């Protein structure tokens, strides 16, 4: 179905998405927005996986299965991380990561 779109296109898309995601992780202060950025990185990974599976591994398509697992884990991670963010918020009335820096040195 992808026809004659070169695989590199998908890979570059994924690379850009990964870069943007990492930017978000580094630049954001809100714990939830960092999570959002991590989701972007994981989405980049799934694109990679599925592209490789479709182009290079069409018989076994392990990449697709890998992607399913990644999506599952990512969803679970959001849930768990939000639980922790809520707890932090209850303790300190903030969800800004740089205000939670009692532990250091």
């Amino acid at each position, binding site marked *: 179905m992808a026809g004659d779109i070169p695989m590199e296109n998908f890979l570059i898309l994924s690379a850009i998405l990964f870069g943007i995601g990492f930017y*978000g992780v580094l630049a954001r202060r809100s714990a939830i927005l960092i999570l959002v950025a991590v*989701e972007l990185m994981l*989405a980049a990974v799934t694109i990679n996986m*599925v592209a490789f599976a479709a182009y290079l591994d*069409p018989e076994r398509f392990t990449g697709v299965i890998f992607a399913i697992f990644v999506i*599952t884990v990512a969803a679970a991670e959001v849930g*768990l991380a939000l*639980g922790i963010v809520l707890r932090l918020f209850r303790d300190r009335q903030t969800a800004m990561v740089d205000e939670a820096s009692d532990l250091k040195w």
Partner: protein
Amino acid sequence: MIERLPLPAPLAALLRRAFYPEGSFRLPLPAQLDRVIIYGGLVAGAVLTPILLVLIVLLVINVLTAPELVFWLASAVIIGGALGAVLLKNIVHAALSLVMTLLGVAAIFLLLGSEFLALVQILVYGGGVTVLLLFGLMLTNATDDPIVSDGAQKPFAFLIGIGLAGILSVALVDQVWGAPTASMVPFRELGKRLFLDFGAPFEIASLVLVIALIGAIAIARRDRPEDTEDAAMGDGA
């Protein structure tokens, strides 16, 4: 809220019907959500419609094939959404533009022949994860004060983001990859692979979900008084 938007009256009424069908019922979503959706939709439409038109023209005059059209469209949506998610000052807007990206990724999956994955992506992400994130925002009162500034290391972040994307792109393009065309993923085969060949990891994944579930509950739950009493009694036990 909707009344205060500068919209034609019939449109406003329609939207009100859509968001508050019974008048009393309110979606458990942030108050500005409707405004976000409306403005977001309008902006997206304004940006995307010309692009779409150009692409369709290209398609019609046979410069682009249909899959290519879909690819470029989806890429635009993905990158645009991703940029929105990491750049927008308004925390709710940022979280919502993630949805755009994830839907775009679903389109890419479709393009690569994995309908199942596309479906999972839409259901899990578009449904579950987004709502979770919005809940999170709500419960941390981010919606009262939705504007956040970014951290001080933004310049480094910028360099790193550009650098990573650059290095990865160059290296991946430099590689000589094997077969040139993609093929569909057969649904039935996928099921067999997933549940049979990868049965063991599948079960481990279910454990991961259980742990995440009970963990999130245990951590986020406000402890009842009897729990703490219980714990205090533990000293004697």
